[in-house]
């Protein structure tokens, strides 16, 4: 066990955990930020996607010891009032079915649009390929990201 100071959604937090603890479980168990989901634990499904300095990463496979002073952003911190263009587009297109994967999808989409503000449908599909939606909302996700790009 060791004490780590990490910056999550703009706030400093101190946690006393094993140094190999994935940031996913620090968020969920220790900071009670449960919007970030556990799906596979091996960086295959994308349900645990968060931003590290604005880049989307799989929090299930990133130990807290590797975070350092980098800024962590979770779905809870993506916007003040749930009004990020991607979140708004998700509601406009009524994307979620079960909803479990959607926080990860949204985080991945938001980071992607930061780098590619006007993507084609094919570019969106490729960028989102690491995020599994078991309910099969891919066509809606694709259209929602196109809408978010227009409204950003």
């Amino acid at each position: 066990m060791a004490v780590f100071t990490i910056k999550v959604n703009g706030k400093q937090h101190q946690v006393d955990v094993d140094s190999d603890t994935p940031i996913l479980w620090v968020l969920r168990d220790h900071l009670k930020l449960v919007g970030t989901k556990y799906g596979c634990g091996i960086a295959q499904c994308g349900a645990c996607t968060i931003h590290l300095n604005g880049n989307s990463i799989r929090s299930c496979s990133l130990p807290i010891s590797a975070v350092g002073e980098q800024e962590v952003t979770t779905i809870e911190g993506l916007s003040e009032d749930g009004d990020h263009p991607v979140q708004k587009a998700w509601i406009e297109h009524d994307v979620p079915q079960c909803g479990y994967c959607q926080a990860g999808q949204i985080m991945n989409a938001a980071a992607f649009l930061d780098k590619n503000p006007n993507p084609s449908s094919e570019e969106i599909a490729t960028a989102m390929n690491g995020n599994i939606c078991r309910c099969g909302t891919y066509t809606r996700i694709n259209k929602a990201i196109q809408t978010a790009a227009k409204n950003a």
Partner: protein
Amino acid sequence: MTVVKTEINRRSFLKVSAAGSAGIMIGFNWLASCTSPGETVSIPEEWFNINAFITIADNGEVTIMSPNPEIGQNVKTSMPLIVAEELDVDWNMVKVEQAGLDTENYRRQLAGGSQSIRQGWQSLRMAGAAARRLLMEAAAKKWQVSVSNLSTDKGQIINNETGDKIGYGEIAIEAVSIPVPEEIKLKDPKDFKLIGQGVKNVDAPKIVTGEPLFGLDYMEDGATIAMIEHPPAFGMKLKSLDAEEAKAMPGIKDVFTIDTTVGEPQWSDVNAFTELVVITGESTWQVMKAKKKLKIEWEQDTPAESSTDHAKKLVDAMSQKGEVAREDGNPAKASQSASKVVDRTFSAPFLAHNTLEPMNFFANVTAEKAILVGPIQTPEYLRKSVSSLLNMPEENISIDMTRMGGGFGRRLYGHFGVEAAAISKKIGGPVKLIYKREDDLTQGTYRPAYRVNYKAALDDNGKMVAFQAKGAGIPGSPLFQDRFPAGTVDNYKVENINIDTNISTGAWRAPRSNFVAGAEQAFLDEVAEAAGKDPIDFRLELFDRAINDPVGDRNDYDPERYAGVLKLVREKAGWDNKPAGVFRGVSAYFCHNSYVAQVVDVVKEGNDLKLQKVWCAVDCGIVVNKEGAINQIEGGIIDGIGHTMYSQVNFDKGAPVQNNFDQYRLIRHTEAPPEIEVFFVENGIDPTGLGEPSLPPIAAAVANAMYQATGKRWYHQPFMIAEQEELIEVG
């Protein structure tokens, strides 16, 4: 106008009581009876199975309880929407809350079989209409006018003569003392304001901001984290446990075994592994790490099965005589004198459900009571099982349902809830049981493996004169003997062969249909080709026979509605004017009371095939929530394509080979068709199921389109893997 007569009996149909200082709470007791005289609507027997709660606040806010478990099928939006329609309220004034398990006031709190809307339709409407009537009577009394002079709109009662208005919230307290009406008038569907339109998923704002909604998100202070270790292979059981090293790991509280054998098992108590090793600790990661340090010896209990054994048994079954489920005419004789016989065999592997949220449950068991919270499709059955396990009366056990990160049938089987209760009892405190993905994927309750052989005989004119199907499954045959093409052909036979297994299997989205629809509809494509006919024309000719001169009287489909979706998809897709460079396949199926026809467009990109578009016609009667309905249909199509093309569970000496998503292939974004267009038949018939029906036929629409593009037929799922690996000679 639809009038529904209520009969008040000993356990009154409606219980009206004051809820706090203001507002009314109307609790429906669905044990009461309801009849439909003369011109009134006929109420299905299932009417007793559903329920609702309406709370109206003095400010006009309406809370509608959603009784059924939400697994992503969107009933938490669509069921309250039906209540709100008849109540005639502004949807923006409605708040929806998930009800817990409450068998006193609710019936059939179950997510399965695409039945929530179908079975809830009349009773949910009545819930809204009865409340509206009470409010109107209260207003009539206040204004000293007849109810017939009043109307309602968006949560307000209007005096048609004076123009006076009063809000539901203002009159609600007066409605408490109004006796329950004997008859309830339901709206004419043409007057619907909400039903048929699209409203957004009520939980979407919480989902997109990451609020705690799901079972895995539910935690209480002081609760212990627990994980289980089940045998690595079906047929094995625990021999010995050495927990010394694991127990010494940081944060670990204990390691022990539990036996979750239920004395009086329910149908939902499907579980190959009842004796489990449990490890408990302070945090999820610490328990995950220490779990790897458990030293467990397992021993063989029943014979180990491998996929090669399964394949052999299924192939052998095709040459055995099965149990005849239906035989019309003499198909063997008719086939002998036919000009052509088409004989083909189809197969599909075991599948895992892979809900993205793994199995989990919270339990807090004390001497007096048990509190359980988590994702469960069958809370009523879970409570019976927990009652039996704990030897505790059901009334002392409460179950709250969280939103579920997927169901697909997996959470019909609530062993994880039983396990959480057993662990909580053992440790004497609250516990949160969490399955790792690997625990989840290798635990079982899989979709069975199937193989079906079809034989169709054609006469000189290309008319189908005989149809025979022989189905085998591990453990059960997938065939439905009274479904299409039963009734369309004089000589018809269905045989079933069941193969025992020690692998636990269960319902997987659209059970049996999920395989057999694709097999049958791909087969008929080949038969139509052999007959020299267009595949849609060929099917329509069969439906003509079923409409005009059906064979037998047990055919469980309506051939006119079946033909209707085919005609609709033909028109919408422009079937008769196919664009150049597009290869098309068609498929249609009826299950869960709904009819679906699909056309798939495939294009060639170099050496690759790309699914370009799916056209889908659906007859599910009245569409309650259009946006949600389309979403379900799209999801079923993509789910069906994914599992048909990529997914399988194989076994090596009883051990599942695939244990996480690096080996178990789920469909991904680039593999989904970029466009799906959905068309509904508008017929005003009471609504039927939508969670499942779009999935089964898609396998054949894809196979038939890929055949057009490649000249190759696809018989063995998953198409992208099994076709290369199929060691068995293709029929």
